[in-house]
């Protein structure tokens, strides 16, 4: 069952209280409803990770890579439980055995979006927290998403924006973080991508461009793997398949993801033959298909 922490309670996170003072303490949530493991520890080192609902394959891969290392080092990952960027951050944290806090835009007794019920349970099972300022089964509204963002930003010491369009909730979270005086990290992305325009804007405005987990961990002053060694050993593609065309495909995909048609033209191979190689490589786990483009695994 959901429990509640009042604003005057000792349990109320200090970091949030202080952050909210900067925009006027009256704007903060009077009560926080929660499910799961409420301990002072979980709020000690929090990193908010937010990203677009339309996360690209690149965004997902980068989120997994960064969050896995950061969460495994003992940093709590805070996010908004929306599908896309939020969901990628939560599930990466859960998978590596880290702690994560999901701040819901709806009443504490609702799961929104309902399709992520499994993730919801995983967060609770791994000692994470579900928080909401709304009681019972309050339906999410447009404004509750924005209100939720101020808690996401307020709970953490820094915010990482993985991917964001120019007008997006992720940028709202970032602007709260700026007002609270939190550090902002942004993931650089291709300038042609619609969902990298927001992060690039943040970098231009002074956000720290993140290229490795160390960038974030240095800020938190904890060493990688100091507390946990649960990082799953990632097997890199051994780029030697013995097949000439497959080799060419791997070399090309190292540079950028491509459509099958583009590769056929590039290598001057009939698309039938190329398709054969692509299927076989997919089965071997070398490459992956997402939104019509092939990526190196």
């Amino acid at each position, binding site marked *: 069952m959901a429990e509640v922490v009042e604003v005057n309670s000792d349990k109320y996170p200090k970091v949030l209280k202080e952050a909210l003072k900067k925009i006027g303490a009256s704007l903060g949530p009077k009560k926080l409803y929660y499910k799961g493991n409420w301990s002072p520890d979980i709020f000690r080192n929090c990193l908010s990770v937010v990203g677009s609902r339309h996360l690209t394959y690149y965004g997902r891969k980068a989120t997994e890579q960064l969050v896995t290392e950061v969460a495994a080092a003992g940093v709590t990952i805070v996010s908004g439980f929306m599908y896309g960027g939020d969901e990628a951050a939560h599930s990466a944290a859960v998978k590596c055995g880290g702690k994560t806090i999901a701040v819901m835009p709806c009443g504490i007794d609702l799961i929104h979006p309902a399709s992520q019920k499994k993730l919801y349970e995983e967060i609770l099972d791994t000692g994470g927290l579900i928080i909401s300022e709304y009681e019972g089964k309050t339906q999410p509204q447009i404004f509750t998403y924005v209100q939720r963002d101020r808690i996401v930003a307020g709970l953490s010491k820094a915010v990482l924006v993985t991917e964001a369009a120019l007008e997006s909730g992720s940028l709202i979270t970032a602007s709260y973080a700026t007002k609270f005086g939190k550090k902002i990290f942004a993931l650089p992305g291709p300038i042609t991508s619609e969902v990298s325009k927001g992060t690039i804007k943040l970098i231009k405005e002074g956000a720290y461009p993140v290229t490795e987990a160390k960038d974030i961990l240095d800020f938190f002053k904890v060493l990688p793997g100091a507390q946990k060694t649960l990082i799953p050993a990632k097997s890199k593609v051994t780029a030697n398949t013995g097949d000439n065309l497959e080799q060419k495909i791997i070399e090309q995909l190292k540079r950028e993801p491509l459509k*099958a048609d583009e590769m056929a033209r590039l290598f001057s191979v009939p698309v*039938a033959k190329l398709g054969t190689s692509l299927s076989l490589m997919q089965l071997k786990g070398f490459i992956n298909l997402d939104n019509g483009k092939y990526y190196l695994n």
Partner: protein
Amino acid sequence: MLIKVPSIVNLGLETIKVDIEINLANKGLPGFEIVGLAGKAVDESKERVRTAIQSSDVDFPAKKITVNMAPADVPKEGSMYDLPIALGILSSVLEFPIPQKSLFLGELSFDGSLRHTKGAFLMALFAKESGYTNLYVPKDSANEAAAIKGVKVFPVEDIGQLCRHFLGQEEIFPIIYKAVKDDKKSIVEFDMKEVLGQEQAKRAMEIAAAGGHNIIMIGSPGSGKTMLARALPGILPPLNDVESLEVTKIYSASGGIPPGGSLITNRQFRAPHHTASLAGLVGGGSKPQPGEISLAHRGVLFLDEFNEFPRTIMEALRQPLEDGYLTISRSRQRITYPADFMLVASANPCPCGYALHPKKSCNCSQNQIQKYQKRISGPILDRIDLHISVMPVDATEFEDNQKNSEFLEASDKIRKRVMQARQKQEARFATETICSNSQMKNSHIKKYCKLAKDVEAILRQASLKFNLSARSYMKMIKVARTIADLDGVDEIAVPHMAEALQYSPKNFETA
């Protein structure tokens, strides 16, 4: 005086003989009456017959005329009984006998001339089966009837001419069948050569054409889905003799053969709009007519914006997709129309259309996308063999056309390969009731698609990895069979199966 003129009635594609009995009685008030379950169009023929006879300078007899159409319990529709009725009256007035072993059909004009009438082809088929040797039909409908060998088809220009023929004053000669070249240009809007890029989609089209597989294209607006579909007829093989007969029958029954037309030899391409009614699409009405799916028999049914079609229509496609025919059941009658078509569907990935677009951003929520994609039901998707995503091409990429010329194959070249693959299938299924790989049932697959160990291993691996259903598993084998046929090989090898996997459903899941 009682006169009998034989004609026919078409119930769907089935033909029954109808005796038009005309009685001219001297007793009673002059009048004109038609009995025998005559429809509105048949009843109205009274006025056409009366005026046509008067226009032919014959006095309409001032007698009590009663026309009976036997058998009296079969509903009769259409304007084809004008000629037999008028002829019966004239034979009484001008005193000539109705010839033996003859059938009559045709609609009259007020001036006595005969108009193109549907069903002449079906009548010729019936005549041949039932031993009638002479057919008297309107001149414009004579050629289609003459496609059936063994019956004499007399092209009649007007009712006066026919009377003079029977009175021995003027002779009408049987028409000699002339195959009219179908105007292929009108069906084929694009050559595959004109479609820039889209190599994989074009290859999928080739496979679909070769094996008669159903195909679905998912892509953003402007990515070329419709263009690809419209280019498809250009790579389809012509109909063989049996198929040609089947298709012509359907078109003759629905009045789809133009005046002076002949056997239909090209595969038909039907593209009904998504506002089409259920009866219009699958056939129906109180007097069941063939729908678009039957008009697309042995050809292509192209459903653009597939998920905009109402659910009821989509689900109605399930049975014909599986069986190749559709039975329309009414309380009065049950009519079966063949509907063995190749389904080509196209759809957007999401409501705004840009979920798969490389540059434009999609602003649909996950919920909206899921709802949109769910409009196409699982059972329908399961019956579609090839799934491809079509991505928009950058026109500037193709300014240097020379460089890419080898990728721009003309339709004719592709068509040759398709025809070779079809020949292989025809030879394979010579003793079966099916004619293409897509029609194979599980028993056929067992018999004709023996998989080598390594090929099966790949398929098993893929079905685990991509979560293929049992039906999808079988579909992959069918597609691989077609790819091997295109390759001219008897054994399905690893490359064939691997390529087939490219077109499995997993490849366009966006969420």
